[in-house]
């Protein structure tokens, strides 16, 4: 379990995350939704120690995330950022191998190679593994970054908008993959999503943020409602029931 205790962050008097306290479960798929600028990425960056906190603590199964050795944290928690920096002249496989750093410090073991191969296959990259990252399309590159955090093989997987620039088929495949990881390997997946219908269909729990605060927190049945969504986004929503799923419409 990851316990967030009154996390706070502001940029020059502008309060971006406002005393958020939460418990992120040690299993299941948890989606974070909310409008642009709500503070979702800031929250995830603080939970994953990429960003220092102004106040509050993050406890990861008894480990103070901001005090513990970075490598300890990296063996339990992997983070995919909204935008990643690409090293020059690196191949897809080499990038995914860097995900093994917390375990191997760069000297890959047979277990590492197995994890890398599995991650590449899961992200449909087995055929592209020798390609340079700069020779890929935006969606292929995004999948390579996802494969890198998968290869890290952690209990907690934090993903900031992992569906960015993926086509419909690969987006759905990735959501199914995350669901499988959670169901079969007991991975706890926490992800920021803009497509609320992916959140609705694949999540166990949905956390909605607005103006740096958690304004809704519950099952898809509780959060994907016309009233709740209109409140979170400040715009009208329709929610339809299709084959047992709750599908929100916001196109008109």
């Amino acid at each position, binding site marked *: 379990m990851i316990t967030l205790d009154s996390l706070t962050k502001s940029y020059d008097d502008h309060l971006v995350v406002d005393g958020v306290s939460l418990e992120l479960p040690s299993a299941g798929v948890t989606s974070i939704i909310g409008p642009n600028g709500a503070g979702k990425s800031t929250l995830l960056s603080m939970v994953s120690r990429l960003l220092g906190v102004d106040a509050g603590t993050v406890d990861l199964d008894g480990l103070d995330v901001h005090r513990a050795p970075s490598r300890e944290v990296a063996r339990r928690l992997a983070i995919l950022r909204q935008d990643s920096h690409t090293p020059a002249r690196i191949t897809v496989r080499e990038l995914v191998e860097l995900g093994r750093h917390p375990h191997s410090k760069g*000297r890959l073991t047979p277990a590492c190679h197995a994890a890398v191969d599995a991650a590449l296959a899961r992200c449909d990259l087995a055929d592209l593994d020798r390609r340079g990252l700069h020779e890929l399309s935006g969606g292929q590159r995004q999948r390579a970054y996802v494969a890198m955090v998968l290869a890290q093989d952690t209990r907690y997987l934090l993903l900031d908008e992992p569906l960015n620039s993926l086509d419909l088929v690969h987006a759905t495949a990735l959501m199914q993959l995350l669901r499988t990881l959670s169901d079969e390997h007991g991975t706890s997946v926490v992800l920021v999503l803009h497509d609320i219908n992916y959140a609705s269909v694949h999540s166990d729990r949905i956390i909605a943020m607005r103006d740096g605060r958690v304004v809704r927190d519950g099952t898809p049945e509780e959060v994907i409602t016309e009233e709740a969504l209109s409140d979170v986004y400040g715009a009208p929503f329709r929610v339809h029931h299709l084959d047992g799923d709750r599908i929100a419409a916001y196109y008109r």
Partner: protein
Amino acid sequence: MRRVVLALTLATLGAAALLLTWGVDGHWDFALPRRLETLAALVIVGAAVAVATVVFQTVTASRILTPSIMGFDSLYVLVATLIVWSTGAATALAMPPLALFALNTGVMLGASLLLFRAVIGDGTRGLYTTVLAGVIAGTLFSSISGFLFRVMDPNAFDVLMADLFASFTSIDTTLLAVGAVVLTAAVAGAFAMARRLDVLALGRDGAIGVGLDHRRTVMLAMALVAVLVSVSTALVGPVTFLGLLVANLAYRLTGTHRHGANLLVAMLVAAVALVLGQALLQHVLAFNGTLGSLISLVGGVVFIAMLIKESRR
């Protein structure tokens, strides 16, 4: 990769043989020791500058920036000027070479660490902020040195000028030995952290994400760079643009992001370029001690070409 390394190693050996034997008529016992010293200086300084540049470029996430370009050379001039100015020409000349070298290097080391920290921060500033900070620092140092040149007495100025121009042919043997030991240790240190440098190329967030102690790694890398450039500059004077040339050539030759490969190949490229350049200069062009200016000419053109290419992106 193997073939590149093999070819470059052979080229280095060939160039070395050329430098050692070309045009020696008879007086081997006189020529050989002096030429061996020059060869050692070229190889050691080349390796140090190459390694320093590759590491520096990873920390700054840039293929254009080098310690020299980021104000290091003007800092060196300033430190040397301050030392001669404050001790006076007579004292500077009377000082044992090793003491002057140690003073020069020590002050440089401290000052360059401060400079790098001020200019680079933790490596998360954008290219333009970094370049701007480097240019401002460089200009500041140059203007202070320029002012001191004017108020300095002419004897001290002469001593200083002799100190400031890159020269591989007139190095004190003791200094060379001491410098070689320090530089070899620093180069070995860089190779020891090659895998961490690979991870550092992911950028701050990516590196922390896979468990790298980012702050410590950047500090360590910059300390190595500071040692490498301080000692090599104190030995032979500034060779601006050498690092830029050899690092970028090495990236092309290896085609990989791995630092193990890039460090090694950059070192070999530097050795070939310097040794061959010196041999040719001495015999074909019959110049002496102007290797630095030749490098600056070629490197300057490449630097401007790279800047133009980068700005068109």
